[in-house]
């Protein structure tokens, strides 16, 4: 209904496979970006930052990472929590080891460290398939958590066994530490998030993305038409690790400030991110954002309704949340295996064909 496509035709291939082929979509996209970068920082407050926006952005990055691996390359991983932990601890070690290097570099560095670790744990995927692999990745999850617990070197031997981010500034603006302001927190996460989405989109639409999807859809055929499964799968693990690592680093350094591996990066993190991409939509960048938004906002809304309005006990509401999330997972797998992203696509199609039904 809103679209006016007549005359919006493509005269070159780069125009033809741009991310938003429709003019209207492009406009909306750029407007959103503008608002996110220019307006929100001015109006944001601590509550919105720490309750919704910052976690949303960080989880979105993690979801992008996992979606590359699971949604695009078809390799299910239950180790996301562990890999986020790697990002977090790598970031911590870097921050404390090189205090005068920019925190931003540390975060990216953490991404690269995680990349390596993730690739190593990806090696079994060459022989193990399906949920055999999924279970195998649990090894990563538990081993890594255990490792960061047991080896004092990772938390610089401090008594609490916790890691806590010292204050680091960029252009004099603190990005980590207790007196980080909401807008700074938000902006740094937003920047990383947008960059990640941009990179992920480019990778998934190019030849690498096709290699991944070929492996996902039919690995044997893929190999026979010339896709090297080794490089394809490992590259997926590597890049997935990179993004997950970055999200882990941000989660710890910018968002939490202090973290204890067991509770911050436990198995349930792995599931949370997995749910995000299932609900959001496997194999869709948009889905990562949709899923992250959904699962970040849902608890907040429930808490608001349950606790603040109805005045129920928080634990009761927490249980309700479990029920709802679990139910939704099953619902989506049954009704719309391609998640919110698919719903979105369908809606768009309808708008384009309006007033015709098909």
């Amino acid at each position, binding site marked *: *209904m809103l*679209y*006016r*496509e*007549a*005359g*919006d*035709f*493509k*005269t*070159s*291939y780069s*125009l*033809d496979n741009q991310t938003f082929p429709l003019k209207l979509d492009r406009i909306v996209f750029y407007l959103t970006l503008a608002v996110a970068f220019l307006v929100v920082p001015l109006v944001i407050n601590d509550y919105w930052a720490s309750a919704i926006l910052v976690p949303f952005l960080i989880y979105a990055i993690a979801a992008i990472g996992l979606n590359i691996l699971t949604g695009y390359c078809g390799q299910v991983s239950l180790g996301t929590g562990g890999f986020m932990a790697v990002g977090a601890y790598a970031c911590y070690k870097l921050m404390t080891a090189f205090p005068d290097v920019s925190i931003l570099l540390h975060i990216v560095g953490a991404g690269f460290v995680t990349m390596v670790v993730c690739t190593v744990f990806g090696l079994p995927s060459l022989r193990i398939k399906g949920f055999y692999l999924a279970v195998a990745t649990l090894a990563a999850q538990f081993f890594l958590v255990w490792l960061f617990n047991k080896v004092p070197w990772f938390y610089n031997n401090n008594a609490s066994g916790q890691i806590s981010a010292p204050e680091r500034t960029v252009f004099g603006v603190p990005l980590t530490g207790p007196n980080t302001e909401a807008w700074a927190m938000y902006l740094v996460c937003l920047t990383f998030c947008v960059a990640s989405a941009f990179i992920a989109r480019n990778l998934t639409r190019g030849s690498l993305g096709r290699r991944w999807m070929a492996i996902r859809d039919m690995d044997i055929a893929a190999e026979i038409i010339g896709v090297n499964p080794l490089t394809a799968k490992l590259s997926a693990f590597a890049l997935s690790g990179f993004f997950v690592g970055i999200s882990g680093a941000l989660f710890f350094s910018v968002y939490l400030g202090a973290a204890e591996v067991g509770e911050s990066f436990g198995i349930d993190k792995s599931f949370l991110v997995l749910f995000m991409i299932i609900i959001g939509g496997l194999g869709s960048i948009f889905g990562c954002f949709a899923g992250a938004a959904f699962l970040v906002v849902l608890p907040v809304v429930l808490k608001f309704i349950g606790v603040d309005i109805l005045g129920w006990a928080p634990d009761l509401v927490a249980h309700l949340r479990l029920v709802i999330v679990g139910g939704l997972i099953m619902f989506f797998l049954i009704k719309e295996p391609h998640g919110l992203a698919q719903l979105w696509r369908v809606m768009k199609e309808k708008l*384009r*064909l*309006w*007033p*015709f*039904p*098909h």
Partner: protein
Amino acid sequence: MVVKDPSLGGSLETLPALVARNARVLGKSSAYREKEFGIWQRWTWAEAHAEIQAAAGGLLELGLNEGDKVAIIGRNRPSLYWSVVAVQLCGAVPVPLYQDAVPEELAYVLDHCGARFVIAGDQEQVDKVLEIQEETPQVTYVVYADGRGMRKYDHAALCSFEDLQGKGRAAESRQASRFAEIASNQNYDSTCVILYTSGTTGKPKGVVLSNRNIIETSKNATEFDSLGPGEDVLAYLPMGWVGDFIFSIGEAIYQGFCVNCPESADTMRSDLREIGPTYFFAPPRFFETLLTDVMIRMEDAGRVKRWLFQHFMAVARRAGPDILDGKEVPGMDRFKYRLGEFLVYGPLKNTLGFTQVRVGYTAGEAIGPEIFEFYRSLGINLKQLYGQTEASVFITNQTDTDVRADTVGVPIPGVELKIADNGEVLYRSPGVFVEYFNNPESTASTKDADGWVSTGDAGFMDKESGQLRIIDRAKDVGKLADGRMFAPKYVENKLKFFPNILEVVVFGNGKHECTAFLNIDLQAVGNWAERNNVAYASYQELAGHPRVIEIMSEHVAEVNASVAQDEMLSGCQIHRFIVLHKQLDADDGELTRTQKVRRAVIADKYSDLIEALYDGSSEISTETEVTYEDGRKGSISARLAVNNAVVSDARVREASAA
């Protein structure tokens, strides 16, 4: 790159000269687009000019002489459009042909115009040309645009368009003078193109059109509708047809439109949507099928959508045309129409590809008023024009502010009209063709000494609108006993616009009043019967059913009322009619294979019925021979009611409620 074109300095009297001008003036803007390999390949005027030059160079190299004829046959593609101009650039005459021509027709035309070269679209066309080599020995060389599947062909007298251009580019330097010389021999009155009219009777005639014809007409027509550079046209109609030559070549080059060629015939609709032309022509049939398509698709829509659609289409029918004509419209309707524009019309136009259409034409045959109104009411500026090959298309055209379904508009600038006393429409204009190629007698019989051309159509100037109104083929128009005009086709068309009526034959030539045979449309009437649970066992029974006859009488009365409105035709009202017990059928020789009625045959075969129509009897039993699908012959007998129709009084206008 571009060969210096001597005519640049001089006046712009040829299409090549105009192309050169465009290359200079509109160099950067789009001249041609073709959907190929998934995207719209694009050529600016500068590039197009270069392409044309190269092709022309190639043709010279192959030994094309001034005055030679070059046949061009294939689907609409830039390379073929360039070929047209390239040929002219060589001082030769392009002869665009219908791509669906069968070998025999092709052989006749090639032989008649004596084409030495053929520029063909693809293997299919080349094969046709090769197939008739014997009959057409003068064809010395064939060029093809798409070489698919022809690698193994003998390329002695065959080459691809690219190779042709290659030859040209290679020879560029030494040809400059030659081109200059040729250009200097060309003037406003030298031949621009020969177009073969698929004559309904006899062999096709080659209509010779001069540069003057094409350019003047293009000028007048485009100025009439204030069309200028930057218009987008979709080139999808056969290149052999004069309309395409005017819209996609004459006007396009004169004004600098962009000509867009679809990827293939079956992607035309989606390509139309992508391009969204600003200037669009289609025959009535196209708009008709499109409308049916829309209605069918809306059938499956949800209740809400359907309601929205019906509601706002009602609004559109009420207010749309007037808003489009810039007439006064009540504020409420104006508002509702805006809303509708957002909710229905806009999206609809978008999905159909008409969002950007500023001027749309339909012509060729009568278009159903409700179909016409539908598009008008959406805010699409669809207009009717009247023309023919001999006039380089345009004779009359409708102004944006005064568009009607039943007229064809006023003469465009430079066109003079007069109505012969037998009702035939005559015209004279700068677009009037030079001659029929190698056919002086036809030329003489069509065009008189001082340039008046007879259209062969009967018509008159509508009093209130001052627009021309076409009634019928002149030869079919007769007189009633009392001398009033008798135009059967005119009335028949009016009746056939009712979905319930499939075929009509009106009689009355030389009689004192008009009568008619009607054929019901089994589908439409059948549906009606189902909805109103009217039981019937056979076509015959349904056709004879009193309630069906009732409906028919209503339709006839309605038509009579509207016919009564113009005193010239008021005599053509139908006084008595019979609903036939069998469908008029080509197998019985009652229709031509193209579904046109054969009056003589019918009049003779059903003489008894006609008699009954005029002798006042109220019933008649008859015996008719029929041929079944399997060819067996049989006969059916029936008692048919002869019905009197409500006839409106010609003088009382109020009676005409429609």
